[in-house]
């Protein structure tokens, strides 16, 4: 059972609007692969192209090396789990799960065997005769998974299936989805705008923006080695500091931060940085820590504007004294109890970071995107440390 999926130069246009720019991609059989991106980035369109609901304007989709052109939805070896689940409300749990088998002419006894087995897999034994409308959100979710698995798809397509659940249940279902994927060995293609889901479950993630795949990598690499400014800003949280390259020495880049003084970071992505070029330094809040003003290495002085106590850590919203830019700092275990009590709005602190943890990328002008809503929350910072001339 070859569940590999290959997109070969796929383009999707709706009238004048190009929803998917030319995209080629190979997803391995049995892989848990996620498309991560803000709403409107084209990820659902890609999913619909794989499932057959949309026919690409150009290019070809292969599943298990078979071209899918001309193969209608109901003949593809894929099954979809819809965002709203789309369970059949007038049918029982059994009838829902067995629908795909009924269509294939499987006899009643065999059907019941399969649905009992799948109900056990999703931990819903005994719920078969219930109407789906009687189930809770999490149970419906499980029925949707069982219904899709019943047709023994080679590829399971999941369109933000957890977005309707509450936080606790969502986290629980993540673990379960991953376990089901491992048990069944089916290729999972998962669509989400929630980076937590994508990073947590996936073998590999494709980050998408405006119809283009920005980077395809395993979650750790995405986090550590973002290829573009969009990925750096979208995956995890990042502070964005505009700067200019002074020189590069291997991976290490020295930067002129304008009013912020000399900064340093690690080159990421494939684009070469040339001396004097405008660049963006991304420093994650968790990589910043308070240091003595005399300490060596890059330093940023910020004035605290808000203190958010989150239990395991404290999130500080500060404004850089030198440039007026925002800087978010996450203080965790390194923060002593006495320090935590003295943090107050208006206080000035100096933060340092290890240049190996900060990433330098060419300034591609990519906007900062809100990770929850997927909306652009901040354009290019206007006065960015003298980097704009």
């Amino acid at each position, binding site marked *: 059972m070859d569940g590999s999926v290959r997109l070969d130069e796929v383009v999707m246009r709706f009238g004048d609007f190009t929803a998917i720019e030319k995209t080629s991609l190979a997803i391995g059989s049995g892989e848990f692969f996620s498309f991560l991106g803000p709403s409107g980035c084209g990820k659902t369109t890609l999913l619909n192209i794989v499932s057959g609901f949309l026919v690409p304007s150009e290019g070809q989709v292969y599943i298990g090396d078979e071209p899918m052109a001309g193969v*209608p*939805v109901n003949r593809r070896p894929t099954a979809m789990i*819809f*965002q709203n689940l*789309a369970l059949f409300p*007038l049918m029982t749990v059994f009838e829902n799960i067995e629908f795909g088998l009924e*269509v294939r002419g499987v006899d009643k006894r065999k059907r019941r065997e399969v649905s009992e087995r799948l109900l056990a897999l999703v931990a819903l034994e005994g719920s078969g005769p219930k109407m789906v409308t009687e189930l809770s959100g999490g149970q419906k979710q499980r029925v949707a998974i069982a219904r899709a698995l019943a047709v023994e798809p080679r590829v399971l397509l999941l369109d933000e299936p957890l977005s309707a659940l509450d936080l606790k249940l969502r986290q629980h279902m993540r673990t379960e989805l991953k376990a089901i994927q491992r048990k069944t060995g089916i290729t999972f293609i998962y669509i989400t705008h929630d980076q937590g889901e994508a990073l947590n479950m996936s073998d590999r993630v494709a980050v998408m923006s405006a119809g283009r795949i920005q980077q395809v990598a395993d979650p750790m690499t995405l986090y550590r080695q973002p290829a573009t400014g969009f990925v750096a800003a979208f995956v995890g949280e990042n502070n964005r500091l505009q700067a200019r390259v002074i020189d590069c020495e291997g991976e290490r880049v020295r930067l002129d931060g304008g009013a912020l003084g000399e900064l340093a970071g690690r080159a990421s992505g494939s684009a070469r940085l040339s001396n004097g070029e405008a660049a963006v330094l991304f420093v994650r809040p968790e990589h910043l820590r308070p240091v003595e003003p005399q300490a060596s290495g890059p330093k940023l002085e910020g004035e605290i504007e808000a203190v958010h106590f989150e239990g395991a850590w404290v999130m500080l919203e500060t404004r850089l004294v030198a440039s007026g830019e925002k800087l978010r700092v996450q203080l965790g275990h390194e923060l002593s109890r006495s320090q935590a009590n003295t943090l107050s709005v208006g206080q000035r602190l100096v933060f340092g970071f290890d240049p190996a943890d900060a990433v330098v990328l060419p300034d591609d002008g990519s906007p900062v995107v809100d990770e929850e809503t997927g909306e652009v929350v901040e354009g290019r910072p206007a006065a960015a440390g003298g980097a704009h001339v």
Partner: protein
Amino acid sequence: MFRQLRARFGGPLAMAIVTLLGIWLIVMVTLPQLQMIEYSLRPNLLPAQIGGPDDRLTLANYATLFNNDIHRTIFFKTIWSSVLVTLLTLAVSYPLAWYLAKVATPRQAALCILLLIIPFWINEILRTYSWFIILAFRGPLNEVLMMLGLIDRPIRFLSGNGGVMVGMVYAYILFMVFPVYNAIESLDDNQVRAARDLGAGTVRTHRRIVIPHAKPGIATGCIMTFMLAAGSYAVPALLGSPGSRWFTQIIYNWFFEGGNWNQGAAYAFLLLVLCIGFMSLIMKVFKVGLGDIGK
């Protein structure tokens, strides 16, 4: 209801509205019906005999139908033909409703609905006459068919049931299309997509997903079409032949040609009882309640 009206319009106006509504229902609807029941239970007498010894309550008028072979045949033929009209109308309307609700763009749907409605701005009699012209022995339909070489000599569309069927399907199509359209429209597109995705073809998707969902709408459409068809007068009168007489024509004859209102009223009530029976049956078969139909 009164409380809501009072909250909206104030006490006196609310009272006036409710009173007018009550008068309307009692004087214009209920009393005439009761009077008709009364008529139907009395023999048809000369004015001089009214109030005399012969003027007593009797079921004789109702018994007439069962003693008259021709009338009884026409009665059951009317039921059967109305069922046929209903099924034909459903067969024509379902694909149309599906197209309007799920396939057409909003613009196409609006245009299509407009085209459906425009003919209904014209009086039913005139619309029916236009079919009379179209279907006539030397009418345009026969001319076109002959010109195309499909037939050698004109067909008598208007003899037998054909003309009546066509005319009625056309006359009542909107009463079927709109309830079915409303029902299908409320179906989540993902339900259809999910069925397709799980391997169902077009027929099975409709049979298992769309039709069960649209059932209340289909039942509403069928009930309305059947009632209108069974109670129709103009279409069978204009497009029918002597062989396709409708029961309503018999009722009409009793009233206005026979001058026997008592007999006519009894026949009218039998038709009413029949329609209510049919409605209940349909609702039972489709397992829908009165509440579903109101939706």
